[in-house]
């Protein structure tokens, strides 16, 4: 599957898409190891901060304020970026965003661009759009490069190649990188060095750099990219022209607010006290860095999310991926099963809101509602609450919902009627007891028909016992 599958054509529903991943023992092993390691480290990094809960609350409250006054903050950002010599573009959707970026690149005669890792341009399918206009986009983040070279799709927000192990990467580099030494080993340092040699040439040659944005400060026009490898800094400083693409929710009010997020983000994402590279720039500066700076503000469904009172908290997300790393579903299926740029718990709520229920209606159900995601979220997105809320929307829009004839609908309504009436409820208990006899073997039900067969494919079900609690109570009193 290519990363454009999410953007073009409806992806397979989650339960079906998950099946292949669940059966892939190499993938399961890779993911289990990676998520367990980062989970333990994150917990330790967070435990070092005595006021972590206060920071989380500040991170949440700031985002809530931004979302309440998003129009004002965006206009303020536009003005301050322009004041600092930058150019601001507004993009309604992915297509408009890609067109703007392509136009700028072509205007500078660029047939290749270097890219820092950016989920937003992954969301818009920028690389493919540029390719169609004869521009080669080079990914420079190590994991993103691995994904690009193997014609794969990212499976994690922060670690896009989390599903691959060192040996798989070694084989890929040996095959795809022209300058890779013939005796390349799977030592991470050697692998990074091979990539570095390859990338260095690209950095020095490219005239246009493209980045995402972690935070954009409304009152100063400062834009920030937070990263680990230094490739982001190369992309944002070496080329003559820099184009940064940001979702409109990435704006924050003031410079001081960075204090909150630059503590929350690294500890939550890589379990570091501080990430190795934090680049901050304000417009253009004479004799330093790019001579032209373009900031593209992308909506692409975000204002729809904003209009959803319960769902809008998903726009608090700072893309740390802590929720992926603790999610028991993600740990077992990996990211591809979600069929979206945004996998895991945050993807399960963000994707259907950004691209609609017809595209991603199975995602709100891809959770056991265990709540581990909410517990670690640095900006306190109540993901289980939004999942349940989106399930209501899915039920309301599902095929057959209007006529209320879908089998699940009929069953749920019938059960609700039974539960709303004591006599019907007690009659149903008796009926269950009496009608189960063809299914019960040695006190347990080992095989159920129809939609319930999923349960008994690996689990027995106890038989309904002869006496309900209420019958015992009545007998006793």
């Amino acid at each position, binding site marked *: 599957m290519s990363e454009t599958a999410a953007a073009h054509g409806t992806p397979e529903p989650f*339960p079906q898409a998950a099946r292949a991943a669940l059966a892939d023992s190499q993938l399961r092993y890779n993911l289990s190891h990676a998520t367990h390691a980062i989970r333990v480290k994150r917990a330790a990094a967070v435990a070092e901060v005595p006021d972590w809960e206060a920071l989380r609350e500040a991170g949440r409250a700031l985002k809530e304020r931004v979302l309440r006054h998003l129009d004002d903050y965006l206009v303020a950002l536009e003005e301050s970026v322009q004041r600092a010599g930058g150019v601001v573009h507004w993009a309604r959707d992915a297509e408009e965003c890609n067109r703007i970026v392509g136009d700028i690149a072509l205007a500078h005669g660029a047939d290749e661009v270097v890219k820092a890792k950016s989920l937003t341009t992954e969301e818009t399918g920028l690389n493919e759009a540029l390719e169609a206009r004869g521009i080669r986009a080079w990914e420079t983040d190590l994991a993103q490069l691995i994904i690009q070279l193997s014609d794969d799709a990212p499976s994690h927000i922060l670690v896009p190649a989390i599903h691959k192990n060192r040996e798989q990467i070694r084989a890929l580099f040996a095959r795809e990188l022209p300058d890779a030494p013939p005796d390349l080993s799977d030592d991470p340092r050697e692998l990074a060095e091979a990539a570095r040699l390859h990338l260095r040439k690209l950095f020095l040659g490219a005239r246009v750099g493209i980045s995402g944005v972690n935070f954009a400060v409304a009152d100063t026009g400062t834009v920030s990219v937070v990263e680990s490898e230094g490739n982001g800094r190369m992309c944002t400083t070496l080329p003559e022209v820099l184009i940064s693409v940001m979702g409109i929710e990435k704006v924050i009010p003031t410079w001081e607010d960075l204090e909150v997020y630059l503590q929350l983000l690294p500890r939550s994402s890589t379990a570091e006290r501080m990430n190795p590279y934090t680049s901050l720039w304000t417009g253009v500066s004479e004799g330093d860095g790019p001579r032209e700076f373009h900031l593209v503000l992308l909506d692409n469904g975000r204002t729809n999310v904003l209009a959803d009172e319960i769902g809008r908290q998903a726009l608090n997300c700072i893309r740390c991926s802590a929720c992926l790393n603790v999610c*028991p579903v993600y740990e077992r299926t990996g990211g591809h099963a979600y069929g979206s740029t945004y996998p895991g718990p945050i993807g399960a709520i963000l994707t259907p809101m950004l691209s609609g229920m017809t595209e991603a209606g199975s995602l709100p159900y891809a959770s056991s509602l265990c709540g581990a995601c909410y517990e670690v979220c640095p900006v306190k997105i109540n993901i289980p609450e939004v999942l349940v809320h989106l399930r209501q929307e899915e039920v309301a829009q599902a095929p057959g919902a209007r006529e209320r004839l879908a089998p699940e609908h009929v069953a749920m309504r019938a059960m609700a009627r039974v539960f709303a009436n004591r006599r019907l*409820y007690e009659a149903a208990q008796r009926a269950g007891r009496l009608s189960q006899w063809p299914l019960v073997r040695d006190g*347990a039900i080992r095989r159920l028909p129809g939609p319930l067969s*999923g*349960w008994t494919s690996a689990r*027995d079900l106890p038989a309904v*016992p002869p006496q309900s609690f209420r019958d015992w109570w009545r007998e006793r009193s």
Partner: protein
Amino acid sequence: MVDDVGLSAAAPAAAPPRRVSLFITCFNDTMFPQTGRAVVTVLERLGVGVDFPLEQTCCGQMHFNTGYAHETIPLVRRFVDVFAEAEVVVSPSASCVGMVRDYYARVAQLSGDAGLAREVAVIAPRVLELSELLIDRLGVEDVGAYFPHRVTYHPTCHSLRMLHVGDRPLRLLRAVGGIDVVELPEALQCCGFGGTFAVKNADTSIAMLSDKVRTILDTGAEVCASADNSCLMHIGGALSRQRAGVRTMHLAEILAETKTGPEAA
């Protein structure tokens, strides 16, 4: 290790109640009546009177969590009517208590009925999970139980992350005479039940369950205990299918056991 991660969202400490109203839940009423009998045994042993309003049925959690919020409204209305007079409601199901305390207000809001919202606001904080009642309101850890078996405890997600019961159930278990409580590795991991998730995403659910079962077997315990029969039915379903020789028991059933048997009273 299960630590007390947060303050309980339950009602603030008050005088220990003399009578409580039992919300058995539809699931326990029908499938696990022995848990209800055990709750009555333990509470009566501690001198607490138990009422059981027969009009009660279901809290509506399955409907609400599956996306049928409108179908949940009559069930919420029914719950507040049935338990309107109760000073304290106790339930042996952490997830049903979580439904009442965390989501009833949302359902009431959805109904557009301000009266229902007011009633929910009064009743929801009075609804306690069994270990909350025993430790926070009755102030007991040792309930006089005796259970000479090797037991491991699975802390359910909703008991931990919705109710924040922390280590209350474990404190109750550790105070049981003769018991050997063994720590469950990766205890905080979900067992994969998740209500209709277990059916809608059966393959993923089973993958989660396999790991949970493996850690349970690793402890060498003969009993896996928990505060929610729904998770236990899930775990027990796999143990039964695998003929693993390990049984599941609700916390209340262990607390009801004495040297003279489970229901000596």
